[in-house]
């Protein structure tokens, strides 16, 4: 086992054959519409032709069960690729910066503050471009290379842009990235450094969406969250696999997850369920709760209102990485939270800032606004008894604070200014040394 990430093989390795060229029965059955059930071949497409429902990768779990085991996983690379048996990439992953295998940290200080007994933070700031997006992008682009794409693209409020730019550079792919022009500087530089074709679109989020949908329609690029979205979203399942493995091969009682499109939340749920189905962890109930910012809370609002559909909103929040007004997987996230007995909650921008500070001050982890949303909601759910004190709870912290310092710059005080002599320091200290 090593953290070494080797260069991808230069020759395309489809990986379809095994031992003397015999074709291995495929783990991948095809794509299936989540709404009408229509099935089709594995291909770079994301909506059902019949009903516009989203397509999802279908696996043959009998085939997977024959090869997967805890031991095999534990011998694998210290990255998402130790779980490749459950990911939609067939050959050696071609686009790999070492995403995943991030720390799961027992957080006793924060737990005590919140009045719960057993709390863990999944610290997914510890990824190659400092957000969980590296999981989905490495998965999407590895698959895209297998499909034969030479260009990667996305439309993003920052984290996805950073991750696509970096992974495309690593893979030698051409890269087009669209961002709203009002993004935080850290997220702009965090893309530009990898030299993508970066388009800052002057317009509101609706206009950015419209333009990018048209571009995706008219190009033959791997738009990670459009035509290769079924493969992209599967990468988030690794957030469940890792937590289960890190907890000694078991699911927690309760998970708290931020929601933008709702994809990550539904896939973490799916990930734990797959491990149970395969007998890798014990069958048990667990609850899934979701976190949104008040300024963009279409899913949490629908949860509160008892609706089974999600009414799109115009986002206005400092949590730009969660500012997705018309979430593609919103209804599935709703379904997941309801069917598991979980909750959804929203927090104000002030609570987001408090959440960021609370996590940093109690546990030494500096998260971005999305993490502030998650901690704010975790606090709310704990204080209202919706997280029971004896539930083993995992909160997912999915992005780093250094990309969005402006969100908290006015809320962290300032250093004490002193002259370069002892007297000045002693004056600041309030005592003689």
């Amino acid at each position, binding site marked *: 086992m090593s953290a070494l990430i080797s260069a991808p093989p230069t020759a395309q390795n489809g990986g379809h054959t095994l031992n003397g060229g015999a074709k291995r029965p495929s783990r991948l059955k095809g794509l299936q519409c989540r709404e009408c059930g229509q099935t089709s071949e594995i291909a770079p497409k*994301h*909506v059902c032709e019949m009903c516009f429902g989203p397509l999802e990768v279908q696996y043959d779990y009998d085939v997977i069960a024959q090869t997967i085991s805890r031991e095999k996983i534990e011998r694998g690379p210290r990255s998402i690729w130790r779980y490749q048996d459950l990911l939609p990439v067939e050959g050696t992953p071609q686009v790999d910066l070492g995403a995943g295998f991030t720390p799961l940290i027992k957080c006793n200080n924060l737990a005590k503050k919140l009045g719960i007994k057993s709390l863990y933070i999944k610290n997914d700031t510890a990824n190659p471009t400092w957000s969980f997006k590296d999981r989905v992008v490495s998965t999407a682009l590895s698959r895209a290379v297998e499909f034969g794409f030479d260009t990667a693209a996305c439309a993003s409020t920052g984290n*996805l842009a950073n991750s696509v730019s970096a992974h495309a550079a690593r893979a030698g792919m051409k890269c087009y990235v669209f961002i709203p022009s009002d993004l935080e500087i850290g997220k702009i530089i965090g893309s530009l450094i990898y030299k993508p074709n970066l388009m800052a679109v002057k317009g509101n989020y609706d206009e950015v*969406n419209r333009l990018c*949908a048209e571009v995706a329609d008219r190009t033959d690029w791997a738009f990670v969250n459009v035509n290769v979205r079924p493969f992209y979203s599967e990468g988030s399942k690794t957030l469940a696999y890792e937590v289960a493995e890190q907890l000694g091969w078991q699911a927690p009682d309760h998970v708290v997850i931020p929601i933008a*499109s709702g994809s990550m939340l539904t896939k973490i749920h799916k990930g734990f369920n797959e491990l149970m189905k395969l007998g890798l962890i014990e069958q048990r109930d667990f609850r899934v709760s979701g976190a949104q910012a008040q300024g963009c809370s279409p899913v949490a609002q629908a949860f509160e209102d008892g609706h089974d*559909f999600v009414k*799109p909103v115009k986002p206005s929040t400092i949590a730009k990485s969660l500012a*997705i007004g018309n979430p593609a997987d919103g209804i599935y996230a709703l379904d997941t939270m309801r069917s598991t007995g979980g909750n959804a909650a929203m927090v104000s921008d002030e609570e987001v800032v408090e959440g960021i500070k609370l996590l940093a001050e109690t546990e030494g982890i500096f998260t971005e606004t999305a993490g502030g949303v998650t901690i704010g909601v975790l606090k709310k759910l704990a204080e209202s008894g919706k997280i029971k004190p004896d539930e083993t709870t995992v909160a997912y912290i999915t992005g780093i604070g250094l990309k969005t310092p402006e969100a908290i710059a006015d809320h962290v005080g300032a250093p004490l200014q002193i002259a370069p002599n002892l007297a000045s320091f002693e004056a600041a200290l309030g005592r003689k040394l």
Partner: protein
Amino acid sequence: MKDRLRLTFEKDKVADPVVCQMAKQFDVTFSIRRANVETDAGWMDLELQGDDAEIERAIEWLENAGVQVSPAGGDVLAG
């Protein structure tokens, strides 16, 4: 061109008449792919076909009629 849209209605808007009126007033055709109308709100996914400018006008008209219009598959923009 084709456009796949999600129309979302408040309780005071009844889905079908608005869509029919739109099709009468503009040179567009539509097919409803999925819909769900609850007592206090509802939505409908449809495909509009027609030329770009006419679709633009139809969408604008729907919005003025108090219907929320958004892309059917959800936002392309991600976090």
